[in-house]
């Protein structure tokens, strides 16, 4: 098999010697350390079901354990939803208009242990 490989006409002096400096790699590692430590410690904009903000670790854990729960609007008892058309039963309500941006919200359930649905 070795004889089947064509030997390229390559001048040895122009070969890539692969040498490199220390500092580009060091800067990458330092940047990664700063980002990693800060990312693990910081709080995200996502809210938890218990109230408060979820940390990035909790959000990551929620991805792996089905912990993202959609937020459903809660109305006080006796107050009808203002988005519903008056005089129509809930089954006959027209579909909500399509929005151009993402309006759905999630909360992070830090205690979820569900298996991945995918």
């Amino acid at each position: 098999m070795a004889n089947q490989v064509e030997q390229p006409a390559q001048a040895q002096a122009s070969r890539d010697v692969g040498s490199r400096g220390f500092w580009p790699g060091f800067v990458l590692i330092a940047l990664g350390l700063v980002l990693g430590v800060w990312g693990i410690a910081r709080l995200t904009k996502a809210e938890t079901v218990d109230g408060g903000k979820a940390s990035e670790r909790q959000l990551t854990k929620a991805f792996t354990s089905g912990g993202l729960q959609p937020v459903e609007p809660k109305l006080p008892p006796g107050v009808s939803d203002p988005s519903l058309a008056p005089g129509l039963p809930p089954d006959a309500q027209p579909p909500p208009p399509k929005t151009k941006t993402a309006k759905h919200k999630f909360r992070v359930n830090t205690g979820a242990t569900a298996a991945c649905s995918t």
Partner: protein
Amino acid sequence: MNDSVPGAPSPAAPVPVVRRPKWAKIRPWVQTAFLGVWLAPVGRWLHAIPGCTFHCYSCPLSSFACPVGIAANYAAVFPVFLEIPFALLGVLLVVGGLVGSLACGWACPFGFLQDLLAKITRPRLRLPNWLSHGRYVVLAGLVIALPMYLGWKGTPYDEQSVSICRLCPAGALEAGLPYSVQSLFSGHGWLMGWQKVAIVAIFLGAALLTIRPWCKVFCPLGGFLALFNRWSLFHLRYKASQCRECPLCRTRCWSGVKVDTKINTAECIRCLECATCGAIEPHFALPQSAAEETRPPGPTSPTGQTGQTGWAAPRRPQPRQGSRKNAQLFP
């Protein structure tokens, strides 16, 4: 009278024989040791921390979170939370800056599985190099753009019908298959859909035909880590004084990297199979060695020949005595 031309290769100078580590023999053991890290059941608490290798976090024994799954999930919720996975970026930058794609060749459990499959059939089919750009298509399309678009449209990642997690053979093999077998034995039937079964079958068939098909063509994580190959502290270095100008390094590289012309490319997974003869050797950049390597070429090398970056000029091919492979290469 000395009629030798300065700078010309030295005729018939014996190449010193140096005992080198046999990377091909060490690598499976290192991969096995890393398997113990990624599959540690006691490490379940590390699920909140992204790992640096391709390993499904739905696997019952996984210890870290899959970086690709985390990136896709973050992309899906980006239109809602505008969050960026800083911890994931940090982990990947540290690993990339430290070793680059060495993690693929020596630590990735899914790569190890493909290596084991390749030992069954000794596949000979080599895929063309341009296919490795598919990794970036998967990274940009399936991992970032599509989940972000569907998330923007209001579909949560779990409900997206097309996503990297739904198409991933690692997920099907490491999570879908164990859970389906468990469900079958407990009387609840088979869980995996036919699409996942087909993906597993195609992947297994491809891994028997060619070496590491997923890594070569599809792996978004490998593609991302390979971007750091040109800057990472760990790297491969060509040593002209040890080169016999044989095609051994290129022959041994299953990735199709033209090692004898360029090393540390994005296609390389740093399995170190090419580092057998000593002309290409693994090296770790340190501050003092960086200063040494960037030194301009001196007038003469220690052997009295002009060389590139202080290394000696290349020598003529010299077959080593008693080596069948070298005898074959140098008839």
